[in-house]
Every structure is written in structure tokens, then in C-alpha cells.
């Protein structure tokens, strides 16, 4: 080999080494990134609905057993027999059952009641518990669509609807997926749109622990970034009890006496438990809470053991050692084990011996391994047991306490406890700081031979929290629900949660609500300056009462957004002053606009805004500045226009926001043009608004032969005219005499009329040299009545904008026709929103103002934003609340109904109790009816019927039935139909049949009927 070749070979080897080193680093990096538990949620026997409930039960050494459920169609009369040999019977009469395992909120998940009925309750439970787990991590469950989030679910029962003699016809097509094990995990992925691996694990009683092991591996391998891992077990049929009764495998009293000498069999239980797992580094970066760390885990098999279902001690030892190896730990590094401990006299001793042979060895004196089992409290939750055990360990870590294991008369005499240092937790112990992170192992062994062991470690100390910025003076608290009832219930939950925690930082609540909860269809926003105000708003929401601090609505608006800039008339002395003090975004934008105006004016914006605003050359530039700054504030909340439209001088701000005019050019237009108006037009004319259709006004104007012209058409019956002052006075007088609503606008010039021609040349001169650009945002011109190429926004356009009529009605219709649905009037006071809403008619569109006269602070801005948000607009509060700390919040108030295919139990009524009748002393709601004109009587009756009809259904007063709602299609049943009949009969004195609503199907029909009936009878008389 020549030297050259040696050098080349050495070089190649070095390159290889480098490649291997990098590969090794990558593996070490991901393998070394521990997996964090960022949330947990569960439903377990004893009414446990959260990890906190679980801890209370365990810490108080309570049990969760109950008699067999009566709501599953089980023949309880024939199920029990003391004789263990009697076929078809159970000698056990108690178990760890989930209370109302059939309860489900189908509406939240967009599932029809029919499909819900056909769905295995295990699928339904995992939807709800997964939703809760995400919420508990501060993740909006609807925010993960398309994300690499995995679902790993342990399931072992597949018996829902299995006893059905024949498939009911309308459930055909649902039962296949409804009862499939794979769909338990798949449906969670589907419903939440998760695109990471999704799989169902059936290793029987070790299923959920194996699922956690697989999820942690998938996270470490980079296969997903977030994982829901856990298990569920609901016994749809009593077969497990019958089966194990024949084998005499059940404790007659239903209690698992784990590792006790008195152990006499296992006790079946149910549960659903879900952990949300994430790589620790990601959890830290994403600001998710870290409850604990999955330090290591392992899975193995009994192999060819003594029997298919017999436990195998040596295999159990191996799985524990493998988990310790994976964690890089020695037995002495672990303080406790949550044992499988099912309470069988044969299985428990094998497990204890395996623990003695592993964890029991090489421990210093006084540091035994502490052993217990949750099964002693709840029974054996089977496919959910391992994940439930982890939740118990997490809570024990949080509380620094090792809870007692129950029912130990004495440690099992079948175990040679002297063989190592393992002790039973016969009483609760402090979990003393061992000088390293506290750790506990969790074991599960499946009947088919698959063993799992997971080592859970105390969460590392969190980083010191950053000092949050000063919170906004008023904060939006957004709550929502899939239904109106859910919204009310959610508000009630949040109110009581906050009331119980006086130390809670309001800004933290607002920020956590904004970022960590789904925005569902029925929405409300409370704008609150402090905790008390927030509580009052929430309580009003919960009671369905109106509150000045709360805005509610249904998110029914879908479509693009328009920023609408009003012209003159929205201004008021003091506008923007308060908001500038409360919003840095607004203040900065306002200052910039003031700076752009400065070269052209001899006043300062800050002074001008305080008033008196009595000169056109101050009013117009000041209004422009406020409107531009409001638009910037809207944009900071994510309300970015898809189009802009302006009314009269509002087109100048619109042109700037669209990107057509620089701020400097726009400021020049508004300042110099308003000065030309002051010089050339002031004192010569006037303007007036008239509440009549444009054609009727135009016809009327002919009499003055061009001395008055139509200046603007704002809506269906909203016209502005301009012209000579004396002619205008005559017109106003004439309309007033006729009772037409007419109002003189407080200006002394006539914009949008021939008067403007006097300053035509001047405007062309002073505005020469503008540099309009093509805009990114489309600009609908109310001057031209069409979409405009914004390079045309030069001096000539700004003259025409002042000379021609404003065709705002044309713009509104065109925008609505083009599919724009959210109209945000960026103004100091709303003057156009009502016209837009009127033009939209029945179309689901929302038009909102921004500030109001005399209400110019952040509170009004937030209430306006809330009005858009509750209707579905993309208002994002997070920018406003950036940097605020997060806090735990109550999870979703599921609106449960009972779904169970084989049961005869009635479906749970979800109707909230009707409000107590507090109006007994109030005068009759129909008092004075007889004195009204016929159409007013009908209106009054209709309102009355709608209100009563809503009250009977328990709906909030803010959501009355619509006139065309069909009673029997919006929740009415026989009893409520009679109740409504009774109320109406009592108020009207009419004799009405019980079947009234069968014929008078809607509030409108019923009101018409009452009108007819009352025509011959005065109210209150027979």
C-alpha cells in the first residue's frame, strides 16, 4: 500500500467516523430527550372525573365500588346467585363501575344521537377524556387539526351491542364502526384531525401501560410530536363477572386485597384514563405544564410459561430490569411501585417475589421499596388500569405523599418478604425527598402474557417564570359551548372556579381562555377590568341574563372581512384619547398619523382630539388619524381586511389601509383638501339627512331646480342631501311638516354638490404629485360604485370623491353579493354599521362599529371586537394578552345524555330547570293589549309567545324562539306543550286545548291564532 493510498483510506475512515458520530449524536439527542406527561384526565369508579378526584379518594382511603348498574339493560333479577357453579350467574354483587357509562355529549363532537347510540361507550368516553386532557394542558382541542399528534389506546372489551338480536335498521351502517376496537383510537384522531400514528392496543389488562410505552417510543423516535396515551374499559355486558365466577376468581366482596394475606380474588372495575405526552424540550418551549416525566419503560412476554394465562415471575423480573436499563437507573433509584396487585392469591405472590428479586435488592437500610395498588380502592380497571396507576403516581408526586393501599390484614404469607427490602404501604407515608428526583414504577401484566413496566419521575423544577408585561386595562374572557346550554354551564363552571380562587390573576385567566380553549359555536365574551367584573359577567351569562360587560352570539358568520371607514359625522371631542392611554398599538399608530399631518397643519393632533372639533380642517384630519389608528388596532387582533371601503373622506383612510397611499400622501390629501373646503365652501351651504328612499328624495328635489342635490345614498331609506342653505331650510321644514325623519347635519358647506366645483382647480393644484400604488387589499370605490384600480387615486379622484354623490348603498350590496360577511366600521362612532346590517337582511353577516361617542376606551373596543368574535369573526385575543402567565381552568361542561342500545332507562333530560317564577306579582305581560292597533297587538302577542315558549324550554331570555321555529322541532314534547298552553291560557284568559301546539306549530302561527281568538274576547275575561 502506498502512502498515498493509506492517506486516502485514513481520510475515508475519518469521514465515516464523523458520519457515525453525527448519527450517534442524533440518537443520543432524541433518546436523551425525556418524555413529559403534560396532562392527564380520567373517569374512574366512585364518580371520579379528574385526577384531583382520584387523589381525594385515594388520600381519604375510600373505595369506589357500587352495586351493578341498572341502566345497561342487564337482567339484574336473574344475574346473581351465591352458588359459584350456577351457570349464567355472578356470586359477586359489587364492582368498580363507571357511573352512567352511557353519558355522552354528542353535540360537541358533531355526532348524531343515532350514531352516538350505535357507538361503543368506550369510544365516546375516550373522545371526552381526550378532550379534557388537551384542555388541561392548555391546548385548544380544535387546534391540532393536521398536526403530528398520535393516539395510543388500550382497549380489551368489544361487547357493546353484541347481544343485539337484530340490528335496528337505522343503526345499520353505524354499528360496524361503532363497535370496532380500532375506531376507539381512530375516532379520536378523526374527530380532532390528528395525523400522527393512531392505534388500539389489546394486551388485555396491560393494554394502557403498553400504549404509554409505545407512545413514549413514538415521541422519542420523532414519529409524532404529541401523543394521547391511555386506555378504557367499560363492561357492556356482565359476562366478565359470570366468566370469573365459574373460575371462582372473584373476591366475593368485590374488593382487590392486593398483596394481603386475605386476598381472595380480583374485583372487576372500569375506567378511562388518558395521558398527554410530549417531548420535555417541546413541552418547555410550548409552555405546557410538566406533571412528570416518563423516565423509562419496557414491554415483554411470559413466553412458554406454565399456562397461557399464568403469570411468570422471571419474565416480570426481566421487564422491570429492562425498564430500569432504559431509564439508566438502578433499583435503589426508585422509591415505590404501583403494583399490578389484582388481589388473586396466586398472582400477587408471584409479582411480590419478582419485585423482591429486583427492586428489593441492594437497598440501603431504611429505604425499602414501597408497594401498593390502586386496585385496592377501585377494583381492577383492566385495560385502563396502568394509565390510572400512572395518574395516581403523578398525584402522589405532586402531594409528596405515598397513599395507603387498602384491605391489607397482613402481608401475604405466601411471599417470603425477608427475601428483599419491599414493604407494603399499609398506611399513608410522606414521600420524603430522597436527594434526587422521586420515582415510582408502575406494573401491568396482561392475561395473554404481555407485561409492561413504566418508571415515572418527578418533574424537573420549572424555569423561573418571566415577568409578565403590564396586562391590558380591560381583558376579554371568552367562553363558548357547542350549544346554548353548554355555554351557560361553562360560564357557571368558570365563575365558581374563579370565585374559589381569589388569588387568580385575571389576565392569566383571559390569556389561558384565549389560547387554551376551543372556540365553539355558542360564544360569549366578558370584557372585564377586574375579577369582580368578570365574575358578575360570567354569572349573568350562566343565568342567561344580559350584562353590560358581556356579549353573546352564535358563530354563524362565514365570509371575508371588510374594513369600513365612515366619513364625517363620527367624530366627537375626546375621541381616541382614552384608547391611546390604554393601547400602545393604537397610541403608536395615532402618533404616526399625527406626525404625518404635522407638515400640513398648524395644530397638534393630541390637542385637537380633545376638542372642540368645530373646524372642518381640524375635524377631517383628526378623524382620519383616529380611523387609521383604529384600523391598525384591529389588524393587531387579527382582523385584517380582505377589502376596504370608505364613505366620503373615509376613502382617504381606506386608501392608506389598503396600501394604495402612503401615510404621508393620505395625510396630505385629508389636510390640504379640508383646508380648501374651509377656504372655498364654508358658509355657503348645508347638508341634511333624510329617512326616505333615494328615489323619493330625488323626485322631491326637482322643485329646487338643482339647488339641492343628493350627496349620499347610505341605505334603503337613508339619504343625505346638500345644497344652498336657504333651499335646504325649506326642504327640511317641508319634511318636518310631513313627519318625515329629517336632520340638519351641523356643517356650513355642501360637499358632494355643485358647490365643490368652486375648488376644483385648487384641489388639482394642491394635490398634484400624489403617488398612488396598486394595493394588496381590494378597494371598493363609493365614488365610482365599483372596484377600483388604486393607481387611479390621484388628485382628480380626490376631487371627484368630494364632488360626486357617495354610493354607499351600491358598495354595501356589491360587497354582500361578493361574499363579504364581516363588516368592521373603523370609526369613532358607528354611523354605517346599522345600514350594512339592514342591507344584509336575513344573510348571516355581522357589522360592528368600533368606539362610541363618550365610550372611547379599550373596554368599548373589546366589546366591539367581542360582537364580531361571537358571530364567528377571526378575532385573536392572544396578541393583546401576549406574555401573560397561564393558569389551570375548568374543562368543558359536557352536556350529557344517556345513550345505551340495550337499556330501557329513559334518556337523561338535559333541559335545565325552568327559572323560578319570580314574576308572580308583575302585571300581566299583555296588559293594555286591547288598546293597541292590530299590527301592534300581533307584535306584542308574538313577543309574548316567543318569550314564554323559550322560558318553558329553559332557554336564556337572550335566545328566544324565532317566529318560525317549529315547537316540536326545537325541543317541545307533550308535557312542555301543555305547560306552554297553561301559561298562555293563564295570561290571556282563553280556553285553549291541550293539543294547541299540534295545530299552531310556530310562535307566529300561535300569535295569529291568539289574535283571532282575542278578537272576540278581551284579555283577562272569560
Amino acid at each position, binding site marked *: 500500500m502506498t502512502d498515498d493510498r493509506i492517506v486516502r483510506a485514513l481520510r475515508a475512515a475519518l469521514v465515516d467516523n464523523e458520519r457515525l458520530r453525527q448519527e450517534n449524536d442524533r440518537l443520543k439527542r432524541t433518546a436523551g430527550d425525556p418524555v413529559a406527561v403534560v396532562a392527564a384526565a380520567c373517569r374512574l369508579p366512585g364518580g371520579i372525573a379528574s385526577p384531583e378526584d382520584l387523589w381525594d379518594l385515594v388520600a381519604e382511603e375510600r373505595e369506589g365500588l357500587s352495586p351493578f348498574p341498572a341502566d345497561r339493560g342487564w337482567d339484574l333479577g336473574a344475574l346473581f346467585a351465591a352458588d359459584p357453579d350456577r351457570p349464567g350467574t355472578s356470586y359477586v354483587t359489587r364492582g368498580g363501575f363507571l357511573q352512567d357509562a352511557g353519558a355522552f355529549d354528542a353535540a360537541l363532537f358533531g355526532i348524531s344521537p343515532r350514531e352516538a347510540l350505535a357507538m361503543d361507550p368506550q369510544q365516546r368516553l375516550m373522545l371526552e377524556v381526550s378532550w379534557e386532557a388537551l384542555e388541561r394542558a392548555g391546548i385548544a382541542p380544535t387546534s391540532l387539526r393536521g398536526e403530528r399528534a398520535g393516539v395510543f389506546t388500550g382497549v380489551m372489551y368489544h361487547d357493546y351491542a353484541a347481544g343485539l338480536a337484530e340490528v*335496528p*335498521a*337505522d343503526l345499520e351502517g353505524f354499528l360496524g364502526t361503532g363497535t370496532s376496537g380500532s375506531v376507539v383510537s381512530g375516532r379520536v384522531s378523526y374527530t380532532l384531525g390528528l395525523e400522527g400514528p393512531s392505534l388500539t392496543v389489546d394486551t388485555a389488562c396491560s393494554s394502557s401501560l403498553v400504549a404509554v410505552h409505545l407512545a413514549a417510543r413514538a415521541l422519542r423516535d420523532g414519529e409524532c410530536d404529541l401523543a394521547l396515551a391511555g386506555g378504557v374499559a367499560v363492561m357492556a355486558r356482565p359476562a366478565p363477572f359470570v366468566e370469573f365466577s365459574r373460575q371462582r376468581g372473584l373476591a366475593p366482596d368485590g374488593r382487590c386485597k392486593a398483596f394481603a394475606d386475605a386476598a381472595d380474588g380480583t374485583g372487576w372495575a372500569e375506567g378511562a384514563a388518558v395521558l398527554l405526552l410530549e417531548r420535555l424540550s417541546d413541552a418547555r418551549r410550548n409552555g405546557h405544564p410538566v406533571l412528570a416525566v416518563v423516565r423509562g419503560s419496557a414491554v415483554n412476554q411470559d413466553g412458554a410459561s406454565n399456562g397461557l394465562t399464568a403469570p411468570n415471575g422471571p419474565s416480570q423480573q426481566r421487564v422491570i430490569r429492562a425498564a430500569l436499563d432504559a431509564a439508566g437507573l438502578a433499583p435503589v433509584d426508585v422509591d415505590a411501585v404501583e403494583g399490578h396487585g389484582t388481589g388473586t392469591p396466586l398472582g400477587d405472590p408471584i409479582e411480590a417475589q419478582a419485585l423482591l428479586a429486583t427492586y428489593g435488592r441492594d437497598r440501603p437500610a431504611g429505604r425499602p421499596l414501597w408497594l401498593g395498588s390502586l386496585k385496592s380502592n377501585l377494583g381492577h380497571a383492566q385495560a385502563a388500569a396502568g394509565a390510572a396507576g400512572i395518574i395516581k403516581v403523578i398525584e402522589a408526586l405532586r402531594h409528596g405523599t405515598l397513599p395507603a393501599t387498602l384491605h391489607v390484614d397482613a402481608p401475604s404469607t405466601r411471599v417470603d418478604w425477608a427475601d428483599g427490602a419491599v414493604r407494603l404501604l399499609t398506611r399513608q407515608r410522606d414521600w420524603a425527598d430522597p436527594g434526587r428526583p422521586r420515582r415510582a414504577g408502575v406494573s401491568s401484566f396482561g392475561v395473554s402474557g404481555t407485561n409492561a413496566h413504566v418508571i415515572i419521575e418527578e418533574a424537573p423544577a420549572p424555569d423561573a417564570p418571566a415577568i409578565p408585561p403590564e396586562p391590558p386595562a380591560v381583558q376579554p374572557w371568552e367562553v363558548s359551548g357547542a350549544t346554548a346550554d353548554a355555554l351557560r354551564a361553562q360560564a357557571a363552571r368558570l365563575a365558581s372556579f374563579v370565585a374559589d380562587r381569589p388569588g387568580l390573576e385575571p389576565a392569566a385567566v383571559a390569556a389561558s381562555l384565549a389560547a387554551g380553549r376551543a372556540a365553539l359555536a355558542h360564544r360569549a365574551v366578558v370584557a372585564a377590568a377586574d375579577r369582580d367584573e368578570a365574575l358578575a359577567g360570567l354569572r349573568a351569562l350562566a343565568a342567561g341574563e344580559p350584562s353590560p360587560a358581556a356579549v353573546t352570539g352564535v358563530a354563524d358568520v362565514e365570509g371575508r372581512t371588510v374594513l369600513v371607514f365612515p366619513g364625517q359625522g363620527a367624530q366627537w371631542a375626546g375621541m381616541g384619547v382614552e384608547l391611546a392611554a390604554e393601547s400602545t398599538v393604537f397610541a403608536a399608530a395615532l402618533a404616526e398619523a399625527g406626525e404625518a399631518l404635522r407638515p400640513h397643519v398648524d395644530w397638534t393632533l393630541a390637542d385637537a382630539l380633545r376638542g372642540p372639533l368645530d373646524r372642518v380642517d381640524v375635524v377631517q384630519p383628526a378623524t382620519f388619524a383616529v380611523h387609521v389608528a383604529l384600523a391598525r388596532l384591529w389588524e393587531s387582533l387579527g382582523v385584517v381586511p380582505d377589502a376596504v371601503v370608505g364613505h366620503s373622506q373615509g376613502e382617504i383612510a381606506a386608501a392608506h389601509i389598503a396600501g394604495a397611499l402612503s401615510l404621508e400622501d393620505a395625510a396630505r390629501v385629508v389636510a390640504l383638501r379640508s383646508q380648501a373646503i374651509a377656504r372655498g365652501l364654508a358658509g355657503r351651504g348645508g347638508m341634511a339627512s333624510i329617512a326616505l328612499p333615494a328615489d323619493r328624495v330625488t323626485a322631491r328635489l326637482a322643485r329646487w331646480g338643482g339647488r339641492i342635490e343628493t350627496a349620499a345614498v347610505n341605505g334603503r331609506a337613508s339619504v343625505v342631501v346638500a345644497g344652498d342653505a336657504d333651499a335646504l331650510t325649506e326642504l327640511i321644514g317641508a319634511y318636518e311638516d310631513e313627519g318625515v325623519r329629517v336632520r340638519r347635519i351641523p356643517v356650513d358647506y355642501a360637499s358632494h354638490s355643485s358647490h365643490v366645483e368652486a375648488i376644483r382647480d385648487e384641489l388639482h393644484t394642491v394635490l398634484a404629485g400624489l403617488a398612488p400604488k396598486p394595493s394588496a387589499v381590494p378597494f371598493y370605490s363609493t365614488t365610482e360604485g365599483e372596484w377600483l384600480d388604486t393607481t387611479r387615486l390621484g388628485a382628480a379622484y380626490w376631487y371627484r370623491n368630494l364632488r360626486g354623490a357617495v354610493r354607499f348603498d351600491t358598495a354595501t350590496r356589491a360587497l354582500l353579493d361578493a361574499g363579504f360577511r364581516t363588516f368592521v366600521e373603523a370609526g369613532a362612532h358607528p354611523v354605517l354599521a346599522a345600514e350594512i346590517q339592514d342591507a344584509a337582511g336575513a344573510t348571516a353577516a355581522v357589522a360592528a362599529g368600533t368606539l362610541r361617542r363618550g365610550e372611547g376606551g379599550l373596554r368599548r373596543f373589546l366589546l366591539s371586537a367581542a360582537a364580531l368574535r361571537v358571530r364567528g369573526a377571526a378575532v385573536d385575543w392572544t396578541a393583546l394578552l401576549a406574555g401573560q402567565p397561564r393558569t389551570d381552568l375548568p374543562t368543558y361542561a359536557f352536556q350529557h345524555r344517556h345513550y*345505551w342500545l340495550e*337499556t*330501557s*332507562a*329513559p*334518556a337523561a333530560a338535559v333541559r335545565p330547570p325552568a327559572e323560578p317564577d319570580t314574576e308572580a306579582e308583575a302585571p300581566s305581560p299583555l296588559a293594555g293589549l286591547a288598546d293597541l292597533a292590530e299590527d301592534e297587538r300581533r307584535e306584542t302577542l308574538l313577543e309574548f309567545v316567543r318569550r314564554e315558549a323559550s322560558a318553558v324550554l329553559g332557554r336564556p331570555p337572550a335566545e328566544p324562539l324565532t317566529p318560525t321555529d*317549529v*315547537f*316540536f*322541532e326545537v325541543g317541545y314534547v*307533550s*308535557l312542555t*306543550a*301543555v305547560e306552554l298552553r297553561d301559561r298562555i291560557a293563564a295570561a290571556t284568559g282563553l*280556553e285553549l*286545548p*291541550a*293539543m*294547541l*301546539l*299540534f*295545530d*299552531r*306549530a*310556530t310562535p307566529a*302561527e300561535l300569535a295569529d291564532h291568539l289574535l283571532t281568538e282575542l278578537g272576540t274576547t278581551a284579555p283577562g275575561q272569560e
Partner: protein
Amino acid sequence: MAFDVAAYLAALGHRGPAAPTLATLRALHHRHLRTFAYDSALNAGRGTALWAGVDIDRDAAFDEIVLGGRGGVCYELNGLFRLLLHELGFDVGVFGAGIRQMDGGFGPDLEHVFNHARLDGDLYLVDVGFVGPSYLEPLRVTEQVQEQHGSRFRVVPVDGYHVVERSGRSGVWQAVYRYRDRPRDLAEWQAPSPELEAFARALAGAGILVRGRSTATGQRVLIGKRLLTVDDGRETVRVLTDPAEHERVVADITGAPAATGGTR
């Protein structure tokens, strides 16, 4: 045409023997409900004297209903069917029932006229004159649950009455009506009864029409504009606010006997 067994069986589409067995009773009961509509419009002209004609003119009723194809009310439909069963050799008699009202209570004891039959030592309720939802085939008087076309039925004793209860797929048990276990004589309806009169007055005042007809697997019950459809034990409610659709459904229910298998 005078009452005629062969023509009656032909109208019901019954072929083959009609021996007085449970199988015959079942088949005829279900076919009767599917062939002849319940239609309270026929009460409209009767004021409060709703039960004056309980003892029907058999030939006239046969002509109008069995041959003419108009619907009928309880005592007409059940009266005709009772005559038919008697002719075929069944041991039949009359019961009176109070129907469950909307508020959960029951109407007067003699509000509803229906039949019973004794077969092989068992007592069966036989009712082809009730709009429903109810049993499509004769119901054995027992507390044991009997399943029929997706609905479940039982007869439970309460306060000296027997209450017929029904539960659809939703699983909720609801009373259909209650009766006293005492064969009635049609003359009982002719005795003056303030209770019945008040009840009839309320019904007449309401002016709400009740119509219904059974299908192979359920029933359609149209009260006013509210259409309840029971199919294989599943109930759906629709309210026919469109007058044209309402008219179509009324015609569909009360029209000439529907082809077997329903019209949907």
C-alpha cells in the same frame, strides 16, 4: 251491501283459512290497522255526542268503511272487527279505556272503545280503532314484555286498572291507555255522563283532527300538523307547516287502502 265475512276478509287481503287461532288473529289485526285509517274528522259533525253511535249499524258501517274505504273512529273500526271475529268463531268482548293525555293523566274510563279476545286460556287485547302509537298485533295481558316490530309492550296493574305500556327504541316506557278488567256492555255508553260530556266538549272545542294508519313496521300518527312516524320502534316527529305537504300526508293516510309495504 250487508255485512259479509268473505268480502271483509277480501278487503283485508286475507287469503286461506281463517280458523279462530292466534295466528289468524295476529294477521287480521295487523292487516286491519294497515287497511283502515283512523280518522277523527268523522267526529266533527257529532258535537259532544261522540259515543251515541257506539252500537254501530253493522251494515251501514261495513258499506262505508270496509267497502267504501273511509276511515273510522274507535267504536266503528273495533265494532266491525269484533263482528268479524265473532263470525269467525273467536270469543270476543268489549273493554273501555281512558287514554293517556298530554299531561300524563288519563281520560275518562269510557273514552275509548276496544276489544278483547280469549284464546287458549289467555286474554288478549284487540284494538284496531286506536290511532297509536300502540300495538299492531293482539297484546297478551301480562306484565311480561312483548316485543312487536321494534316496540315493546307490557300490561301492568296500577290502582285497580290495567295500564298498557309501550316503549320504543328510546327505551322510555309510556302508558298508552288504562282499562278496567271488566267486559263492558255497549249500553253503558248510553247512560248520561257529565265526565264524558266535559271531555267531549274540550275535544270538540279544540277542533284538532287526529288521523293515523299503520304500516308494515309501524304507524303514522298525524295530530294537527304534527306527524309522528313510528318505524321499527323508532319515533320521528315532523311538523307539516307547509299546507301542501300537510294535504298530501292527510290524503296519504286517509286515502284508499295503501298497498302492502307502505307508501314510503
